[in-house]
């Protein structure tokens, strides 16, 4: 029983990282219609920055906070390049973010080299479970809760939702649609950065970890068709737990394939109903 509980907590912890990455994709996609392929790069950049800040002697907490902040700023930059030029279609935006993800490789190798890195998280264990996983779960709950409040209860959040629903009408009532898009990229970047900062103590990060992260995030978000934050959280947790169970009881070799197969199944199952979805 202890073993099962351990796998469950580990899985939920991993799932939180997927849910955060996926939520970043959702926030950006809803407002700008761009599927941000560079979403995994935010996590890698954030995490690598924290390794440097910690090495420079900054205390825990401050370093992590700055890493997330940097990821948010990078998010704005990605947004400017991917959506700033008038007339850029979301399809072109996807290719541009793909390019930016590759550009991030150049930056990351330049500053941090190509070897995997990590930093210590919250030490200790409670009942055989690393305390750090509990930290991941707690922080994710607070942050996703706050994000939901931001969207539901503030004027800024309503403006973002309005832009997502109908950019033209939003502009007509005086909402700066481009600015809202950039704000969405900032939030998406920070969520991605947070995922990286939280997961790195339990899972090393290197410059090319971004592909696995963005694929897992996308798999989580696809359950809600990239537009529903609640289903993204469910998808992320589901993936994390199934991965942990597969890794624990079957073989760690098949762990990362779980997300991929899950994604393909959801996509293909949904494609049958695509015409209905598009018409709606």
């Amino acid at each position, binding site marked *: 029983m202890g073993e099962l509980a351990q796998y469950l907590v580990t899985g939920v912890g991993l799932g939180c990282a997927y849910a955060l990455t996926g939520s970043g994709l959702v926030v950006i996609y809803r407002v700008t219609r761009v599927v941000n392929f560079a979403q995994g790069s935010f996590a890698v950049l954030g995490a690598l920055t924290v390794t440097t800040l910690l090495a420079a002697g900054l205390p825990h907490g401050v370093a992590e906070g700055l890493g997330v902040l940097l990821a948010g700023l990078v998010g704005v930059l990605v947004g400017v*390049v991917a959506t700033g030029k008038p007339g850029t279609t979301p399809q072109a935006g996807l290719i541009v973010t793909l390019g930016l993800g590759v550009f991030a490789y150049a930056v990351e190798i330049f500053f941090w080299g190509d070897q995997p890195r990590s930093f210590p998280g919250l030490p200790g264990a409670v009942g055989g479970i690393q305390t750090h996983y509990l930290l991941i779960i707690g922080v994710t709950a607070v942050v996703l809760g706050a994000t939901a409040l931001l969207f539901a209860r503030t004027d800024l959040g309503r403006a973002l939702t309005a832009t997502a629903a109908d950019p033209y009408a939003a502009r007509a009532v005086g909402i700066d649609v481009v600015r809202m898009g950039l704000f969405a990229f900032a939030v998406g970047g920070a969520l991605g950065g947070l995922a990286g900062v939280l997961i790195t103590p339990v899972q090393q990060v290197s410059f090319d970890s971004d592909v696995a992260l963005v694929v897992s995030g996308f798999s989580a978000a696809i359950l809600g068709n990239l537009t529903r934050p609640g289903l993204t959280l469910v998808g992320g947790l589901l993936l994390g737990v199934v991965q942990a169970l597969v890794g624990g009881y079957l073989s760690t070799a098949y762990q990362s394939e779980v997300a991929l197969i899950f994604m393909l199944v959801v*996509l293909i199952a949904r494609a049958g109903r695509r015409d209905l979805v598009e018409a709606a």
Partner: protein
Amino acid sequence: MKWAYAVAAVGALVLPVVLAPGQLTVFILLGLSAMAVVGLSLLMGYAGQVSLGQAAFTALGAYTSGLLSLHHAPPLLALVAAPVAAALAAVVVGVPILRLRGHQLAFATLALQILLLSVLSGAQWAGGAVGLQGLPYLSVGGFELDQDLDYAYLVVGGVLLVSLIAHRLVHSRVGRGLRALATGEMAAEASGVPVGAYRLLVFAVSAAFAGLAGGIYCFFLGYLAPGSFPVLLSIEYVVMAVVGGLGSIAGALLGAALITVVVQLLTSLATQPGMPSYAPSVLSYAVYALLLIAVVLFVPKGIVPTLRRSL
């Protein structure tokens, strides 16, 4: 534009003789990329689909040739089996995944490639993560292709074959149907274009081109590993196709040549004494990224179609 083709043809015939051995390897790899990119460009330009998994078909072709020739199949048969296997695989996965659009297909193809790589690195029969080693040279009726020069001309032939097939396809009934499909799927379908079948055909043809490139690659290098076909290779193909111009055969060839040459120049610059060890990878990633972004934003049709219109 005629003179451009003439220059390219003369270049392709003369270059292998005058290039230094190291440069000849680059020439061969360029040609192999070009074959895969012609296919990808057809797929992206005519079927309007982003595929981030084209290198999976290169890998399939290479492993097909490699496994067959390790099990003592005649090398020529092993080479021919490469595009066939890749096309068959494309038909099998194409039926479900070609119902997806845009970013969904992009992620689905990416997922398939990662899955294939992890199956290959876990499979005993495929040599696992170490891959296949000690593969024989290609030989045809007692004549063994054991010089780089042989492979250079084989690749030139391969590029020519692939380009001709693509050209025929584009200028056939299928090609016209596909063009109609690209401008308006609903209208094309209403006019009786078998949308699904044509899309599957382009997917299979594009996979076959990549598979043939993989087959030649396997005989040229003599060893294969899952790491030879990373996700980044698929992204490189996309960069080459987009930069040259989607849907344009000449664009695919130019894109492959341009990117390979620029990256090669920068790599030789970056490996000069005194340059830091990370310089080659940093520079090549930066070049892929910046060229891709600049072309998508400022030359959205790609170089060749844009030039063609302004000439």
